[in-house]
């Protein structure tokens, strides 16, 4: 059965910011120069070809875009300046939009206006609820929070809390749906989920270890940098800076979770552990974020020379969250009360909520899908990444 060529799809991916992929004359330099392209995992040319010809099924089912760390070597050596690296980034956006059943992700990638609009709308909604919290009953006594700007104050905190939990639960479902969707598509070529039965427990254990190792060491990203050896000092190379963001993120996640469980759940003081962890995480992450922002402003490296609204969104959110988080810390410690502190709290809370709610829709979703793709890749190709 011949595969149908569909010119519409390539148009759609191009709207997501693919490089000038029509320049490509299919010499294969990009794949050959790529330190991570091997055997079955053949990219970026094949991914680019699938986009060019609009082989949508094949594109949606390919895990390859997630295996790319965008070192930019392919774009640098492309004799036709077709910018395959950027095409891979666009492919990831396309995939996120395809994994997302709501269709919102695609809309946001294609239309920066919608991204802004949706972010503002959701923000306004969340702010409304935030300002509606009737905080009276909560945290009487030793409220860890600064005083709360409760402009409307009509919804009891418990209700909000319950709704929040419900929304949280829903988010977890959405995340899992996205992951499931991605896994389903990625496995499609191998015979669907049934293919998973082929592997033994030991395979899963090995793949899990490989994934953990990869997350801990970012080795593949390091491979990207090593050839040719980067001229940048190690502390601004992506392997390190991405690592700081990831580590900071994880540390903050743990700290917040500890807070949630101990302070809100068990009503226990747990600051001694959570707060230093949070501070460290915030600082470490802030470093990475600032380096990234600085590089994007200077268009210093291949992967920062094109900046899409989605990139700005993510950087903006993380930086604002990080900075306002520290501000809150200071405010809490100083016991400072006032309008400004209320505003900061509002911004931090609203954006944090938004960040969580939009997790599967924005660029941060790579944190879900890349590990998944890597896991399946390790599962499928035992030698990979060793």
């Amino acid at each position, binding site marked *: *059965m*011949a*595969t*149908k*060529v569909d*010119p519409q799809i390539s148009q759609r991916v191009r709207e997501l910011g693919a490089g*000038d992929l*029509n*320049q*490509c*004359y*299919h010499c294969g330099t990009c794949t050959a120069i790529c330190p991570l392209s091997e055997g079955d995992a053949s990219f970026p040319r*094949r991914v680019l*070809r*699938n986009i*060019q*010809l609009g*082989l949508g099924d094949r594109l949606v089912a390919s895990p390859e875009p997630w295996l790319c760390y965008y070192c930019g070597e392919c774009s640098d050596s492309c004799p*036709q300046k077709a910018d395959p690296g950027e095409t891979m980034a666009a492919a990831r956006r396309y995939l996120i939009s395809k994994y997302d059943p709501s269709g919102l992700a695609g809309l946001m990638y294609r239309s920066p206006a919608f991204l802004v609009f949706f972010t503002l709308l959701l923000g306004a909604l969340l702010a409304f609820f935030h300002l509606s919290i009737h905080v009276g009953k909560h945290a009487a006594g030793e409220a860890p929070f600064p005083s709360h700007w409760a402009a409307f104050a009509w919804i009891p905190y418990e209700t909000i809390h319950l709704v929040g939990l419900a929304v949280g639960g829903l988010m977890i479902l959405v995340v899992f749906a996205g992951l499931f969707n991605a896994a389903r598509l990625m496995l499609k070529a191998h015979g669907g989920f049934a293919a998973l039965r082929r592997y033994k427990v030991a395979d899963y254990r090995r793949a899990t270890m490989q994934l953990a190792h990869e997350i801990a060491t970012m080795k593949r990203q390091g491979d990207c940098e090593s050839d040719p050896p980067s001229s940048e000092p190690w502390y601004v190379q992506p392997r390190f800076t991405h690592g700081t963001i990831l580590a900071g993120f994880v540390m903050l996640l743990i700290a917040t979770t500890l807070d949630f469980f101990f302070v809100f759940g068990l009503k226990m003081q747990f600051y001694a552990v959570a707060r230093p962890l949070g501070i460290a995480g915030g600082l470490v992450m802030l470093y990475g974020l600032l380096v990234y922002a600085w590089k994007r402003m200077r268009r210093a490296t291949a992967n920062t020379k094109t900046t899409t609204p989605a990139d700005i969104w993510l950087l903006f959110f993380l930086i604002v969250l990080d900075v306002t988080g520290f501000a809150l810390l200071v405010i809490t410690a100083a016991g400072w009360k006032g309008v400004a502190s209320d505003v900061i709290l509002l911004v931090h809370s609203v954006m944090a909520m938004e960040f969580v709610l939009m997790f599967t829709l924005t660029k941060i979703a790579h944190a879900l899908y890349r590990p998944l793709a890597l896991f399946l890749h390790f599962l499928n190709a035992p030698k990979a990444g060793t």
Partner: protein
Amino acid sequence: MTQKRRIGVYICHCGGNISDYVNVEKVADAVKGVPGVEVAKTHVFACSDASQQEMINEIKEQHLDGLVVASCSPKLHMFTFRGMAKRADLNPYQYIQVNLREQCSWAHTSDKIGATEKGIHLLRAGIAKCALTHPLNAIRVETKPRVLVIGAGVAGMRAAIMLADMGLAVYLVERENQPGGWARVTGEQGPEKQNGDQVVSALAERIRQHDNIMLYTGAEVVSKDGSIGDFTVALRLKGSETVSLNVGAIIVATGFAPYQPRAGEYGWGLPGVVSLADFRQLLSETKGRLEYQGKPVRSVAFIYCVGSRQTESETCPEPNAYCSRYCCSATTHTAGLLRQLDAKIHQYHLYRDVRTYGALEKLYEKARTDGALFLRWTPEKPPRVETKDGRLSVLVTDTLTGNEELEIGADLVVLATGMEPRQNEGLNSILKIPESTDGFYKEIHIKLRPVETVIDGVFVAGAAQGPKALAESVASALAAVAKTGGLLKKGFVDLEPLIAKVNPEKCTWCDKCLQACPYGAIKRIHTGEKEIALVIESLCKGEGACVPVCPHDAIEIEGYRDDQIMAMIDASLKEVATP
């Protein structure tokens, strides 16, 4: 040959290059007694001005009638000493150079006695040959300052104008009723972006203005006679009137024939499957929306290499194995024209190798950036064109997509057809220009002499010699003009006299020499009682292919005659008193 020869022999030391290994004085002594040798001397540098002057004086004073210089390779100084002979009023063809350096002293640096001995042998052979020389003069062929150009396509027209610009009279003959050839109907030419029709009109206008060009349309060449510099050609004009022309040279610019696909070849015959030329015409006629047979065209598939690079198969018993050179650039150029007309039309280009060589690469690049998709197939799995749901469907196994079979919906399938040699038996039988294996006219040497044919005075230009793009065709036409100019501009050509000569007494006309000569330089004549062969001096190249085939030793090459070679062999074997 009874008269005693007076030969001067000069042996060069080459400042030691020869004399360090060959005892030149001994060689001189050894040849002093050879019959006919009048002077035998050595010079430190025979080629120096002083030595040359000395030799000239001696030739004149001693009335020498033969000259042998034993020095370096004739490739270096034969012309020097021929010139010197001329200045001494000695016939240059009575000068013989003996290669005593490259083929004696330098090759035998470890054996001085042997080298000296060999030197004597070589010199004796040279003297023996010289003794049998007689004065020869360059063969002067008067040439007529008129040229016949066959074919008034762009190549022929441009050649005609250039010839006229150079001061030659031109007869330009076209079989069709108007000049211009294919360029007239194929629209814009890439990458120069000139419209073929306009190019043709401009050329036609220039031809009209030239007094020196006579254009015959609807005319055909019906006979040709004569040889280089002086041909008589008959034309049949419209209405069976004939004209006889007398020209010095002929340029054949008869162009090509477009390949006609076989029925079913890539869907040929299905509605919507058209040739590139047809499509170009459709494009040039379309204003606004592109439609084919009333239906809008939203997707076009181009199939490359149709009628080119073919392999033999049942359906294709006589394949065109050659690449037609122009089609890749013409098709990628067409992609640009189509895009200009309607950017929304999807284009699929099914190619084998995109041969947009040199600066034509820009056409390919533009086609890609304009959004044309390129798919690569191999002859093992050629694309198939079918009708499916009332639309054309092209199935192609794309090697760029992991050899996957892809299906393309198309409203039009355009076959990029190649060039074929023009079937022109009438003209071929008149001109007798050989064909290459690809069927196009054969040049003498693809690199050295690409516009000359084995028929001296007959040149081939443009696509008649092989597929070419328009600009290339014109360049080749002008190259033919340059060669024609070299032939006709001076009013004569001087040819080497070292050519074949028939001994009428021995010749019995068996036609073996005629068979052997690739240049058509042998002609049968009647002399009184018998038929014999005659060498057409202006056509003979003097390579001697006819010599060994003659059963009666009746044909010889001047300068390499039987008696000379035999004498050389004998002289080179004469014992040398051991030094």
